[in-house]
């Protein structure tokens, strides 16, 4: 399966009469987009705003971050949501780089995040480096929290699709091609390279902790194969409110850095065969079934090595360690990416589970570490959320507008798919 990603580099976003993309400037007809989103009568109100890197702006509470993409053919990405759930990942996809759609608005669960566009907080979130078109949307009366989550999730996808249409017929700045051959072809092409796959657990604890595959709730899947390029075309959509720091937003699914790095080494040091998706359900039986199934597929692919990532902490630590143990028992060399909850002082044990076979671990840092976010001139969203979101407390929001909070509350700060440059060391 072969996919061309055709990039358009966005240098600024402005509100104008007509939505169009020209000379690197994205112009957005605010009213048109708001009306499009308000077609969903579960929404009461929608506002749009722009947050640029370096501005004294805080976005809170952040639900999802999405990169605008569209098929050159005119089809939408996100199969199962905006399109029929038919196979994606081939052909050409137009991508708007340097920007994102950020969904925000009244809190759904407890685990939504903060994006600061400048100051110390900005160093921790990868999304401070993007031009963000922020959708502040609130639900109509009587909409349950599950519907609320779904409504905002779909509003974000629709907005990304609407914006991406502006580059559908244009010539891109550059094109990069990604290709994964069927397993047997790939193995015969590089018979001497170690066979590697990416084992990709999707958050599926339920109760606002869900992820979707071609529109299907990942709780209900058994682990399965997927081409990496399908994921680039929006086959995986985030629908969860896990702690903001280690939530895999739709943006990071679309731009999964593990996939990028494995492609980078493919044909040189490794033979990257593809991706096995699995889930992170709560019960032990589910964990046993899914980890056994995923490892069986790994063995089926005759893997020599695997990278396993994570989303969330505590309960999913058990999935992570179980996968690692079973892969290593099959002789498949495994590297894990996780983050840590070592307490505010960093003195406690970091994970809820451990196994000596997990001897190769990359950490994205201790999410309990405290940070003081200075006051910002502009708030997009609702600053009161600082007192409720995971990582915060009633004392978080200070009178001067600064927020003392754990890194846990910063969107993407301790990405367990390795999106950031943070780590932790023992002192």
């Amino acid at each position: 399966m072969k996919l061309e990603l055709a990039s358009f580099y966005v240098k600024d976003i402005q509100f104008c009469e007509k939505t169009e993309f020209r000379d690197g400037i994205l112009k957005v007809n605010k009213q048109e987009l708001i009306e499009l989103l308000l077609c969903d009568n579960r929404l009461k109100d929608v506002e749009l705003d722009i947050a640029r890197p370096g501005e004294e702006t805080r976005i809170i509470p952040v639900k999802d971050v999405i990169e605008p993409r569209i098929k050159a053919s005119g089809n939408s990405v996100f199969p199962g949501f905006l399109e029929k759930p038919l196979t994606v990942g081939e052909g050409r996809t137009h991508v708007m780089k340097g920007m994102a759609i950020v969904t925000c608005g009244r809190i759904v669960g407890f685990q939504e995040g903060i994006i600061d566009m400048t100051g110390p907080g900005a160093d921790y979130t990868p999304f401070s480096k993007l031009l963000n078109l922020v959708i502040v949307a609130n639900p109509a009366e009587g909409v349950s929290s599950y519907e609320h989550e779904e409504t905002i999730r779909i509003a974000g996808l629709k907005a990304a699709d609407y914006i991406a249409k502006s580059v559908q017929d244009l010539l891109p700045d550059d094109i990069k091609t990604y290709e994964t051959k069927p397993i047997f072809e790939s193995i015969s092409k590089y018979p001497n390279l170690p066979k590697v796959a990416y084992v990709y657990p999707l958050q599926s604890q339920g109760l606002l902790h869900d992820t979707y595959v071609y529109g299907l709730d990942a709780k209900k899947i058994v682990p399965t194969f997927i081409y990496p390029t399908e994921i680039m075309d929006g086959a995986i959509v985030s629908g969860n409110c896990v702690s903001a720091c280690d939530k895999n937003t739709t943006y990071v699914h679309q731009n999964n850095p593990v996939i990028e790095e494995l492609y980078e080494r493919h044909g040189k040091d490794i033979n990257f065969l593809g991706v096995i998706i699995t889930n992170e359900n709560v019960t032990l039986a589910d964990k046993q079934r899914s980890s056994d199934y995923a490892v069986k597929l790994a063995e089926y692919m005759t893997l020599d090595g695997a990278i396993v990532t994570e989303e969330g902490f505590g309960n999913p630590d058990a999935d992570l360690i179980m996968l690692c143990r079973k892969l290593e028992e099959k002789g498949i060399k495994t590297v894990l990416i996780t983050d840590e909850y070592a307490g505010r002082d960093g003195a406690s044990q970091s994970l809820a589970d451990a196994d000596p076979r997990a001897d190769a671990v990359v950490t994205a840092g201790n999410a309990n570490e405290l940070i003081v976010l200075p006051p910002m001139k502009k708030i997009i969203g609702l600053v009161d959320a600082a007192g409720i979101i995971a990582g915060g407390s009633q004392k978080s929001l200070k009178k001067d507008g600064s927020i003392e909070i754990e890194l846990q509350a910063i969107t993407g700060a301790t990405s367990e798919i390795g999106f950031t440059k943070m780590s932790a060391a023992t002192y």
Partner: protein
Amino acid sequence: MGKFRVVHYINQFFGQIGGEEKADIPPQDKEGPIGPGMAFKMALGDEAEIVGTVICGDSYYNEKKDVAKNEVLERIKKYNPDLVIAGPAFNAGRYGMACGSVCKAVIEELSIPAVTAMYPENPGVEVFKKNAYILETAASAAGMRSAVPNMAKFALKLLKGEKIGTPKEEGYIPRGIRKNIFVEETGAKRAVNMLVKKLNGEPFETEYPMPVFDRVEPAPAVEDISKATIALVTSGGIVPKGNPDHIEASSASKFGRYDLENIEYLTPEDFETAHGGYDPTYANEDPNRVLPVDALRDLEKQKAIGKLHRYYYATVGNGTAVADAKKYAENIAKELIADGVQAVILTST
């Protein structure tokens, strides 16, 4: 600006009072440096001086615990120091425990920095490494020559409020404290690099060494329980009234062995719990709830078991370090095996 004021804590041996026969001397203090303090005086140079030395016997400190700690603190306070240096203790266990405890108390109660140094296997390391910086030394006092300049250099850094680097850079024993750092490459790139190394059999360094979970396989079932001698062991802190061995309410440093001869069941008049980690009301009301002597006596009468072992063992499992718990268990098991016990009922809380 004057020199920084430093107090030095040492034991009876380094305090030139005597060896083991003087290990029970209570704390005393003298102005200026004594023993290894002379070397510190040299190493600290013009920037800091040892204004006083507090000496305490190792046995006294370890047996009197809080009393000794408070007496030592009072003597330290007198000199109005900016920092305390304790030891180095090398591989002397009780001295290491005392140095660690003094540093912890100084940091927490006097709110000034403290530093000590010992051999990595000194029990004081496991207990106090999270509370204070412990520099690494050789096992014996032969390592004094290198220990002193390291400690002095580190002490000056603490006094000046300079940034403390990694264990490797500074020479202290890793405290197990995780701190975030920014690195050059993304997590994904680091992971793929690590995987390529692992696949090629090249050395790689994990970023999170797994803590060791000691998983114990259950022993096979006792063949004939009706003939077996069964012992009771608890981490629930049930002790004879008055806690004769002074087992601590938290972070127990010992276990006790107590006689059950002619005892049909435990009464609140004769037994109680020493445990500080749970609501003791129900255990004190009926100690059999934690240590089921009553039920075992019934089983004895019914000949469902051979007999209840004459002695039971108790400690307090509350904030107790895994390493200590393991040590107690090994000792208890040895005695039980020697006494011909076939099975144990282990109760926790």
